[in-house]
């Protein structure tokens, strides 16, 4: 703690003052190098495991980058080509994409209504959407399970174990987040522009198409990317509300825990594949992730 206090004082020489000696610079870089190693080392080990045979994993851990010479591709082909994981992957893609599209469209409409119209009780509605995001999902597992499997019935069709069920369900945490993120952006577009278009005889659809969507495009892109990511990453609800046909890749990952004698290589390979969207989006969302995770309360 003493060390920490010392460093804080050293680093923080009253705001953004640029005078900083070489020693502090070196120390900071050194500290961040260690942090980076701590962050990357477990991921690096996962990559190593995913490229090795069970025999190679036996015994003392070998930390050398053997995947440069030889990759045990069977870890990847076994679950994804021979097994059911290609179905899981397909389900995940469908669910996350549809959910992101649905959430973005609905949130855009809702935000526009909250931002432009003087609706009675819109403050309460705003607060209510927020509470949906904050509630612990574990508390809603049982009612959702019962409702999905027995109550929400349309003939023989129930929402249990369907992709539609998951797509609707993920709105619970994605819609509030999307509304909060888009609210800041749409509030920033001057109301006079809309009114001018109305005077020119434009209808709501034209206003969206010609004004709101072009001006809010970056925000909309970030919202849908983050919605996709949250839907892709969700595990608890998916594992409870699906059994065979709509299982997503995170639920598939947890199946490795229960099987006796885990095949670590395969598990690492599946984990690695399910990380791909996160890695792809990292650079796109990096600047906006703070705004995204704090509902726009803090701008990144």
């Amino acid at each position, binding site marked *: 703690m003493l060390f920490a206090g010392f460093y*804080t*004082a*050293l*680093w*923080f*020489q009253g*705001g953004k003052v*640029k005078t*900083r000696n070489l020693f502090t*610079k070196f120390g900071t*870089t050194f500290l*961040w190098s260690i942090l*980076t190693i701590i*962050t990357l080392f*477990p991921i690096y*080990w996962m990559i190593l495991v995913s490229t090795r045979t069970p025999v190679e994993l036996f015994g003392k*851990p070998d930390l050398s980058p053997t995947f440069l010479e030889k990759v045990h591709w069977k870890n990847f082909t076994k679950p994804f080509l021979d097994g059911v994981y290609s179905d899981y992957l397909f389900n995940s893609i469908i669910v996350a994409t549809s959910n992101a599209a649905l959430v973005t469209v609905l949130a855009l*409409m*809702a935000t526009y*209504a909250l931002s432009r*119209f003087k609706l*009675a009780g819109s403050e309460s509605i705003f607060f209510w*959407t927020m509470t*949906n995001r*904050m*509630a*612990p999902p*574990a*508390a*809603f*597992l*049982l*009612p*959702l399970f019962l409702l999905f499997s027995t109550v929400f019935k349309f003939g023989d069709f129930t929402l249990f174990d369907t992709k539609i069920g998951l797509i*609707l*369900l993920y*709105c619970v945490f994605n819609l509030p987040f999307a*509304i909060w993120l888009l609210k800041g952006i749409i509030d920033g577009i001057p109301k006079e522009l809309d009114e001018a278009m*109305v005077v020119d005889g434009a209808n*709501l659809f034209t206003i969206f198409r010609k004004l709101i969507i072009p001006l809010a495009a970056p925000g909309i892109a970030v919202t849908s990317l983050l919605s996709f*990511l949250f839907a892709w*990453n*969700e*595990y*608890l609800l998916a594992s*409870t509300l699906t059994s065979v046909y709509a299982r997503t890749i*995170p639920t598939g*990952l*947890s199946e490795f825990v229960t099987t006796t004698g885990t095949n*670590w290589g395969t*598990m690492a390979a599946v984990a690695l594949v*399910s*990380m791909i969207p*996160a890695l792809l*989006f990292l650079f796109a969302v990096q600047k906006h*992730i703070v705004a995204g*995770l*704090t509902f726009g309360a*803090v701008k*990144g």
Partner: protein
Amino acid sequence: MFSNNKKGWLLLSPTIFILIIVGLVPFFYVLYVGFFKWNPLAVDPSMQFEGFGFNYRRLIFDGVFLESIWRSIKFSVVTLTLELSLGFLLALSLLSSFPLKKFFRGVHTLPLVIAPIVVGSIFKLFTVQGLGPLPHLLKDYFGYTLNYGMNAEQAFWMIVIMDIWHWTPFVTLTLLAGLSALPQDPYESAKIDGANNFQIFLYITIPMMVPVLIVVIFIRLMDSLKIVDEVWMLTGGGPGYATRFTGIHIWKEVFEKRYYGLGSAMSILYLYITIVICWILYSVMVSRGKSED
């Protein structure tokens, strides 16, 4: 057109409809089921009404449940303290410029976008006995035996370490965003008045950061109180009850033992406690923030 509220409600209606179906209806349903004794695997698998607060009265004396709540709170406080101090330090360091800063920041963002269940897998592969390098390294260099499958203390702290690995970047980046947006005038006045760095930090930075700190603490507390995925993957709630946080406990009671009525009552209490904790914290922090202005 904007005085015509019908169009506004029309735009809002699909959102409200979906949130009622998947948010509000489940809430009232769980409230309803919580008043019944209901176990579909019991001799009588139907719902039986046993007095208004039957399940809740049972829960007050249910040591395992109360312990799981205490465990969740302890976990949240521990991780929050560690992540906040570490994150603040890192955010301060990112205010200055140093070589490779952008790269370090990019890598630091990485854990945020990884799914909790994948984080659990990564840590399982990294720390499990007989496979992971961590137990081996600890054994060889420090003579320390890491086997969280057997040792309750180690299991709890392993989850803490995993949570720090996963969520410190969130604290860092959010606080950094807040710090970079602070006005510079108070700092200049303080410098002229001869304040030292520590005083500046304590009397200027902290009070000005209160709104951002509230957001960070609020979100982190909410999220760590509902932790399930990573723990489920890493320890499955064990060994014994060592890492059985409330979310996992409810899952086990409901889907393994099929205590539907009792599980519903647990869910409601869990929800209630989460809200109360956050409400207390929010009021305390807001009033503190106002008095310091």
